[in-house]
């Protein structure tokens, strides 16, 4: 599996650390349902069949967080973008 790092170029997945679902958002600790929201945020995960957006950290390269779009059925990588761009734009959900 090769991940096209937008900073470094194509690299073997062994240079990356997988961090999981990039679509979940940390809930507010001040909301009244914070305990339930955090339980959901930390433990509840979908098991998507197909394209999935996930966080990978390029620890063997540029030390940047990426949002990688990966097909969970066959590991085909559709693309990778800097996570900071995604979160700045607030477009990911």
């Amino acid at each position, binding site marked *: 599996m090769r991940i096209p790092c937008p*900073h*470094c*170029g*194509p*690299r*073997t997945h*062994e*240079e990356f650390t997988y961090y999981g679902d990039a679509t979940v958002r940390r809930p507010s600790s001040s909301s009244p349902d914070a305990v339930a929201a955090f339980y959901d945020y930390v433990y509840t995960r979908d098991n998507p069949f197909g394209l999935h957006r996930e966080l990978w950290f390029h620890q*063997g*390269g*540029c*030390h*940047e967080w990426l949002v990688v779009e990966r097909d969970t059925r066959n590991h085909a990588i559709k693309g990778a973008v*800097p996570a900071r761009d995604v979160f700045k734009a607030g477009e990911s959900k």
Partner: protein
Amino acid sequence: MADALHFAFNPGRLGHREGAPGLVLQELTQFTLASVIACKDQAAQAAAAAQRAFGTSPPMAPATAAGNALTFIWSGPGHWLALGPHATGAVEARLGTAFGTHASVFDQSGSRVLLELRGPRARDVLAKGMSIDLHPRAFRTGDVAVTTASHLAVHLWQVADEPVYRLLVVRTWFDSLWRWLAASAAEYGCEVLAPAPYASHTA
């Protein structure tokens, strides 16, 4: 800083002994190294500051940029290593003055071993433990890769087409890297040269 290789090997020929060596390996010593990390959204200002102070703009893509007194080696977005000959006086202060509030500067001199690898089989030796494409169509003179060699994090860049590479590795990992290099180069023959000061290798 004492030569890092003294515990690992002595100058001389290793591995295959007939003909010209496939790899010529030399440690470069007496250099100054510092990390330069641009503050949030300040990469362009940091680059402009470097241009004024050192006559070159740190690269925004994986490449090297040589200025007066030092070379910037890309290390990540808004993150560079500044490499130059051993300087008297604190390099941190000199770089800190140049970058002002646009970047954080930390002296890394002594944290890394700097190697130069040349010879007709240098590319083949590196390819045994590196997953990046080193073919000239993909990696050329002036290009930098922050990647792994034999599972160890390294900075690798090419300084000449023949090819000549330079490689920075964390000092405490060097012993491990050396064992891999020696084993990988053995079949081609490896000539180890005596360490030389970086100052005489400013190309």
